[in-house]
């Protein structure tokens, strides 16, 4: 029974995509109902797998058409769900479920929604399939579906400025990534004569031939493109900004995470390349550069969603760096951060969508003072901003803490000064992230309301519910992370470090041992977290503070006065004795004191982000070549 769940979840999403196009292009109820049904079904089926996979440590396998391996050779396409797959699977289904709820409210002003939901469901099915599949060529197929659904969704609002351009960039760069994955897969097939990842892993454990090293480089570069690490990040900013926000949220929350999943699956399981310090260093450097470039470019943005897109890039840098450490602590931190990024970045995109939905713009220079009109969105946004900046009590803090610990421990144990630099970078990037979100807070939600936004209202409940769910999860994952790590992170990290089980389940017991893959279980990672008992203390102090406030509030002399309907002069803002006037301290250039000192850096990097597809293509190709060459020279 259980083993049918993964494939059913994926198939029903695809099936719903076709049904929506056939029956739902005219009828709103059928369309929304089918979409919600399919995504809810996928979510429930994935969550049902938690018990066997995460708690009991089973691996669920399923051979399409019952094409089981014949005399040790895998012929058919197999689905294989281990804890790592399931971890990402839960993220995928949860993200798409929330996005489909949000879409009901958010997309109701658009036309041709049948196409939208078809593409949306295709995208969700392909990402889920990518995560669940055990066959490397099937993975490539899913990447292709994912890329083209994404391209079409990016251009969905093709009457808005820049949508087609963004889609074109996405198409070109995305195709290069897909092609290099395909080339890598072809080379691997020529070497190993199989496409099953479990079997590939056991064959490759005998040692990498030069060809398979090149294949490895191409596949890593390909998944690098899919996860938008610098310098492959170029289409992301345009695409996230141009796509409808419900889709931007999915792009940032899950589609680039699919690339990260592919990277972990390849590096840790198929190639088991983490023993090579050259692979670790290469990924660590790419990760550090990614987080730094992403955040510095985000600081100069004038557009809400573009800014969030650059932060997505930056946060993926954290994940890649953490994963590159090769230690249990690093991997756990990386997975946790990937999950947290899905939550808080999804939340932030939804807030941006809410602003766009009500005001019609996301330009930071044309907004301001919305907190009076959209108080609930403001609170959700502040939670998301706190989480992405890594402030405690939110989830971003817990995962970043683990990542810093991981990198610095690596620096101390390896004695490599590079990791010290990366630690410093990670910590500084976190402050810059904070600065960037202060900018958004000031520019969009605080400050003074513009006249044209006087009749703005809070968004409808169907849009608020996903925001509240994500905000709540941000706080919950930040406070009960011992539970999160016990049931989600440790199983996933252990699954990535213990390859034997994965191979045995797919190819038959004893297969891994015969191929020389160590089946010994790496000890479950244990390390002392920052003690959650402290939250008890926190609540104690909150209580204390609340008591103080209540006491002060009842005190006749020290009471809190708020402006009524007709404000008196004492509630007006201070203007040096002048009359009050419109004066919003704009968001887009808030930190000129910082930028002035960095103008050389910004000059270079603004020129590099030229917006010309040829440039971007050349970065992609050059970086792919560098990855392949570095690995070819140093890995053997």
């Amino acid at each position, binding site marked *: 029974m259980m083993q049918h769940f993964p494939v059913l979840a994926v198939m029903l999403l695809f099936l719903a995509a076709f049904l929506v196009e056939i029956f739902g292009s005219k009828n709103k109820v059928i369309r929304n109902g089918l979409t919600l049904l399919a995504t809810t079904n996928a979510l429930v089926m994935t969550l049902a797998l938690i018990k066997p996979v995460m708690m009991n440590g089973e691996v669920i396998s399923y051979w399409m058409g019952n094409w089981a391996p014949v005399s040790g050779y895998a012929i058919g396409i197999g689905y294989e769900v281990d804890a790592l797959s399931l971890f990402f699977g839960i993220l995928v289904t949860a993200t798409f479920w929330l996005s489909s709820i949000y879409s009901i409210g958010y997309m109701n002003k658009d036309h041709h929604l049948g196409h939208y939901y078809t593409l949306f469901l295709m995208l969700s099915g392909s990402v889920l399939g990518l995560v669940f599949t055990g066959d490397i060529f099937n993975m490539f197929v899913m990447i292709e579906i994912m890329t083209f659904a994404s391209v079409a969704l990016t251009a969905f609002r093709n009457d808005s400025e820049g949508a087609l351009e963004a889609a074109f960039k996405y198409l070109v760069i995305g195709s290069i990534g897909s092609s290099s994955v395909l080339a890598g897969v072809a080379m691997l097939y020529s070497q190993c004569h199989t496409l099953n990842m479990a079997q590939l892993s056991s064959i490759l454990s005998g040692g990498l031939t030069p060809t398979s090293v090149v294949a490895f480089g191409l596949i890593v570069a390909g998944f690098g493109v899919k996860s938008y690490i610098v310098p492959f990040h170029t289409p992301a900013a345009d695409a996230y900004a141009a796509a409808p926000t419900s889709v931007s949220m999915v792009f940032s929350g899950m589609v680039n995470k699919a690339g990260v999943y592919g990277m972990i699956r390849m590096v840790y399981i198929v190639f088991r390349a983490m023993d090579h310090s050259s692979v670790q260093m290469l990924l660590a450097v790419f990760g550090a550069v990614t987080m730094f470039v992403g955040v510095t470019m985000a600081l100069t943005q004038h557009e809400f969603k573009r800014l969030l897109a650059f932060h997505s890039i930056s946060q993926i840098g954290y994940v890649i760096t953490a994963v590159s450490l090769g230690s249990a602590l690093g991997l756990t931190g990386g997975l946790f951060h990937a999950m947290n990024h899905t939550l808080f970045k999804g939340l932030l995109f939804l807030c941006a969508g809410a602003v766009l939905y009500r005001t019609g713009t996301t330009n930071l220079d044309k907004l301001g*003072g919305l*907190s*009076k009109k959209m*108080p609930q969105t*403001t609170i959700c946004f*502040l939670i998301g901003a*706190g989480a992405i900046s*890594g*402030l*405690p009590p939110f989830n971003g803090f817990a995962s970043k*803490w683990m990542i*810093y*610990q991981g990198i*610095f*421990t690596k620096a*101390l*144990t390896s004695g490599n000064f590079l990791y*010290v630099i990366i*630690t*410093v970078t990670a910590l*500084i990037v976190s402050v810059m992230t*904070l*600065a960037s979100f*202060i900018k958004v807070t*000031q520019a969009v939600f*605080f*400050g003074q309301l513009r006249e044209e936004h006087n009749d703005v209202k809070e968004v409808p409940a169907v849009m608020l519910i996903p925001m509240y769910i994500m905000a709540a999860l941000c706080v919950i994952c930040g406070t009960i992370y011992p539970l999160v790590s016990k049931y989600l992170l440790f199983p996933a990290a252990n699954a990535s470090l213990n390859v034997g089980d994965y191979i045995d389940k797919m190819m038959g017991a004893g297969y891994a041992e015969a191929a020389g893959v160590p089946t010994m279980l790496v000890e479950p990672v244990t390390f*002392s977290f*920052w*003690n959650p008992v*402290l939250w*008890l*203390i*926190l609540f*104690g*102090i*909150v209580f204390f*503070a609340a008591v103080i*406030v209540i006491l*002060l509030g009842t*005190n006749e*002399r*020290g*009471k*809190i*006065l*708020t*402006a009524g309907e007709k404000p008196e002069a004492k*509630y*007006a*803002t*201070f203007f040096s004795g002048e009359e009050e006037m419109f004066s*919003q*301290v704009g968001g887009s250039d*808030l*930190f000129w*004191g*910082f930028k*002035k*000192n960095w103008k050389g850096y910004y000059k270079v990097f603004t020129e590099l982000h030229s917006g010309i597809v040829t440039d971007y293509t050349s970065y992609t190709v050059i970086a792919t070549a560098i990855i392949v060459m570095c690995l070819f020279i140093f890995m053997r």
Partner: protein
Amino acid sequence: MQILLFLVKVLIFPGALFTACVGLFLAGIDRKVIAHMQKRIGPPIRQPMYDFFKLMGKETIVPARANKLVFLGAPIAGFISLAIVMLFIPIFGFTAFSGTADLIVILYFLTIGGVALIVGGSSSGSPYAGIGISREMVTMMSYELPFVLVLLSVARKVGGSTLAFSMNQIADYQAANGSLLFSWSMIPAAIALLLIIPAEVGMQPFDVAEAETEICEGPLIEYSGAALGMFKLNTAMKMCIMTGLFTSLFLGGIRTGTVVCDAIIFVAVCAVVTLVCITTIHAVTARLKIEHLFKFYWTVVSGLALASLILVWMGL
């Protein structure tokens, strides 16, 4: 019983009450000494306490443009986070929570203190506050780099690889090997941290964010009454925390055995550090511009901290 002990630690010692009292005391000393340096008599040392209690009894006006929840919540959030920070700083032999004290946690909770000021100021809707928060944030970005470098060099010097950032380990190391200030490779880092303290507590010449004479206290401009009092208290608490952090990072190792004696010596050392890095610098300098401040921290101070880190990394 356990919970009661927690509450005592959080609310009284070394948490909220202790930090607040010591902070206000340090602020009083600062004002008194600087007055003497400028040939004035100055207020009594108790003056910051009087100010605080007076503000607590005044009415708090929420401006019409402000978001009430954030405007009033920000000072409280700052107060909570700063009260928590002190729990992580060992007072010589005494630590409130063994095994959990951690440099990164301190760094982030200190950040919350700054963020509370920024978000509160931002929510007031005043353009002066807008400029103030911009400067406050840039100041934060400025001192964060050298601060991180200092923390890393201390962590490397003490050098446990399992819990790299443990405060307890730093305290134990100094108890065994003497204060870190007296190992010469750490001296540049100590100087760097001394230069970071005035920026963190917003004292001249690094008080660009609150520059009273140009932007009328920036983020605090619309605050009044109890909320303003809380922010003033937060600044004083930061003074206690930062000097305390310096004390336990670089001047640790004194262990009398009784908590009360430890605490008294701790406060005395904090007062000396305050005089050195806050009062003296305040008395002899004028306010910088924000871009100069940024440059100063990213070149001079970071250079000092980096020198220390490299020396320590080479095993000196």
